[in-house]
């Protein structure tokens, strides 16, 4: 409820709900984190820091929290402490271009230009299109009288800044055209339905859960999280054709996402639509050729269908090369067995069992093929 209130700008009410939630579960670091960001927005930096310190008591390595504290400390003019926090943030999130940039800002204000420069450069190495870091470098080089370098950085900054302005303008123009912010408003309402759905799902009220998810999907037809939830709901309830339809819609929104095709393949297999399953697993391999799951799934399909057995073995062998997992070795064992290579089959299933010794299925199969050898 706190999140719903917050989403609609009722932050006072949101805080009331969050505090109530904390009474029930004082270990919700994410709730304290949200309250920190809200306080920050109101310019209440000290309060924000208090909330974030609470987060660190609960979850000392939660990403972004030290960064938040550093930003509050910066606004309060507590520079040295801010630097310490940013360094801690970088230890937790070494890829945080924002923390490197902010460290650069701290050193710039302290007139430690070389240190500032190093941090801006680091930020750029992590995020080459970060205009602010180029502005920082431009400022440092100007102060160091390195005019040619300053001009160079200024040119990049101006280019990136202009691109950002164009993007922002387009975004706003889109909003004003589409009956103002109707689209974004619908998305917000859809999010609210999805919060409500969690409550009904937890209460075991399937019908209400489905109804809320369908409403959310109608309001925000491109909300992939919602469609995935619906697909999952249908799968759990054995409504496979409806689940399949959801994954098909997901592939239209995210045509490069192999996971959706894999789910389609799995569902088609269960629905005995083998040609469709074969096509779907083929798409998984095409989209994610360095991932083993497509190869394994297609091999398994062929084995299920009892056809293309040599190809199934090739696919399973490729899967094992890409990822030496228990599941892959198991399918390889199966493929070897189906191709009459019992020794290789025993060896592969044995490896699967070594990798996942508690798996009763692997043990059962291993014992069976050893016996029948």
């Amino acid at each position, binding site marked *: 409820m*706190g*999140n719903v209130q*917050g*989403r*609609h*700008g*009722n*932050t*006072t009410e*949101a805080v009331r709900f969050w505090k109530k*939630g904390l009474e029930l579960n004082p270990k*919700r670091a*994410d*709730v*304290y*984190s*949200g*309250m920190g*960001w*809200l306080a920050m*927005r*109101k*310019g209440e930096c000290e309060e924000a820091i208090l909330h974030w310190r609470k987060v660190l008591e609960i979850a000392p390595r939660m990403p972004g929290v030290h960064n938040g504290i550093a*930003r509050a400390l*910066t*606004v309060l*003019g507590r*520079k040295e402490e801010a630097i310490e926090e940013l360094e801690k943030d970088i230890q937790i999130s070494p890829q945080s*271009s*924002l923390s490197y*940039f902010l460290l650069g*800002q701290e050193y*710039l*204000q302290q007139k430690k230009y070389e240190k500032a420069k190093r941090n801006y450069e680091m930020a750029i190495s992590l*995020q080459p299109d970060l*205009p*602010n870091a*180029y*502005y*920082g470098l431009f*400022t440092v080089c*100007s*102060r160091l009288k390195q005019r040619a370098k300053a001009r160079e950085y*200024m040119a990049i900054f101006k280019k990136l*800044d202009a691109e*950002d*302005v164009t993007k*922002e*303008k387009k975004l*706003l*123009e889109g*909003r*004003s055209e589409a009956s*103002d*912010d*109707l689209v974004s*408003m619908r998305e917000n309402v859809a*999010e609210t339905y999805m*919060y409500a759905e969690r409550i009904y799902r937890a209460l075991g009220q399937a019908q209400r859960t489905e109804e809320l998810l369908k409403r959310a999907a109608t309001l925000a037809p491109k909300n992939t*999280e919602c469609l995935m939830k619906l697909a999952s709901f249908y799968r759990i309830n054995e409504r496979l054709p409806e689940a399949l339809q959801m994954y098909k819609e997901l592939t239209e929104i995210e045509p490069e996402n192999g996971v959706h095709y894999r789910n389609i393949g799995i569902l088609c297999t269960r629905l005995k639509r083998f040609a469709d399953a074969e096509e779907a697993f083929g798409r998984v391999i095409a989209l994610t050729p360095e991932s083993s799951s497509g190869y394994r799934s297609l091999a398994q399909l062929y084995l299920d269908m009892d056809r293309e057995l040599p190809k199934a073995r090739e696919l399973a062998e490729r899967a094992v090369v890409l990822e030496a997992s228990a599941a892959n070795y198991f399918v390889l064992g199966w493929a070897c067995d189906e191709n009459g290579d019992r020794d290789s089959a025993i060896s592969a299933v044995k490896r699967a069992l070594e990798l996942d010794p508690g798996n009763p299925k692997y043990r059962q199969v291993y014992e069976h093929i050893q016996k029948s050898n």
Partner: protein
Amino acid sequence: MSIFRKAIEVVVPAGDRYPGIDSRRRIAVAWGLLCFFSCARANEHIVLSDVTEETGITFRHTDGSSGRLYILETVSAGLALFDFDRDGDIDIYFLNGAPLRGAKSKVAPTNALYRNEGDWRFTDVTEEAGVGDTRYGLGVTVGDYDNDGHPDIYLNNYGPNVLYRNNGDGTFADVTEKTGVGNGFQVGAGACFLDMDKDGDLDLYVSNYLEFSYEKHVSSATGGYSVYASPILYPAAPDTLYRNDGDGTFTDVSKTSGVAEHVGRGMGIVSVDYDNDGDVDVFTANDVGMNFLFENDGTGRFEEVGLFTGVAYDLHGDAQGSMGVDCGDYDNDGLLDFYVTSYQGQLATLYRNLGDGVFEDATLTTGARGGTLPSVTWGTSFVDVDNDGDRDIFIACGHLLDNVELYDDTTTYRQRNILLMNTGDGKFVDVSEKSGDGMKVKLSSRGAGLDDLDNDGDIDAVILNSRSEPTILRNDTPSKGHWLQVRLRGVKTNRNGIGAHVKVIAGDLTLLDEVHSGRGYQGHYGMRLHFGLGGRDRVDRIEVRWLGGGTDIFDDVAADQLITLTEGGSRTGRR
């Protein structure tokens, strides 16, 4: 969109910062004794009392709105404080909006001129003075363009602008057509008189906000609520520069001066010799885009150097929704600094002048951010409210979205104004909460003017509030320091001394100021320079560097008086 700005946005309602919401979405001067003095005074309270009701001022601002949410409604308007009748006290000129398409009005709203009668009584003399313009008022400035000794008024409107020539008998004449400064039909903003070519007469810089017409109106919404569209959705416009030809007419030199090469969404402006090279430059605060700093080559040809000097963007390289701007030497290092107000979620910014043509954003290191983050900030002034020898900062606040509370309860349409007290060591402390009932008024402020309305040696304030009555604040600070007010009278140079640098030296204290026409948020005030002197009861020396003229030195001047310094060296004082 830059990363600092994105981060600030993510902080709030859209997002992933809320618990459980998926991340998918989302200066110090070695002052010796003065430091001791200032620091000691820092604990004393400034008192600004709300005396609006007792002034007899009945003006009420209208933005001409009809619910159609035309963007110019949000930016009206500035005000001017000046002594129009030269009777020795400061009068008030309020700008007003006008009914926009769809709005009805039985009586056309007009601008209003209030004559200061003394003792905090003001009389509406609009009609008899002939300055009741009924066009849509946005910006105003004052200057004696014809050097006749009487201050004239320039109005920067939505629609044709107006130049009122002061007839010297309490009346004004509309000389727009004759002088040629109507500026077509644009959306006006700030304006200033300046002697760009140092020829002794005042030229005119006119800022233009953006291109708007009813046909170009953009509708927008947030959270399902209709809101004013972002200015970024309207084309930016170049500013206009008029050269005074010295014969009662002006020539548009926007193109030849280099000013028109740059388009922005200009708002508040101030002309200032930022680089101390003896000519006036122009700072234009731009909404949703980089600020401009036009550097004068001394002949009236300008080069835009905002980015190189470090005032185009804030510390992080983010363009702000800049609104108003003032300049002043806050750290008494002999260099004029800038303070620029901005939109909600952005800190109003203090640009410290480093002296080599470069500024640094000192907002965070000095505490000049105050409580500006959740506010939309407009009128502003570097002014020594407590006469302790350093300049404090006044900031007028108020949101432009009149329904903002419906979808964002972290802010409000009506907001308290902000007062940042200079502690004397290059730092500021937000004293708004404990500076009298006048700082508790919650309205949606726009323009603000600060001057000594009752001639008692301290600075009072007048604030124009959108869709509301103005606020008049009397400075009742109990223990004031000594002070000196300086009025200039140019002889060879322009009559008001606009652009002249005045240095006041009193013992260990050296103060610098410059005479401006047009400052803050699209307004004008403070042509009579005010210097707080703290415990010093005498001034050792005053140096006046006249723009386009020589330097006059005035030694051994008593404190606590208004002194008129005339170019060439004579002086007259009044206590």
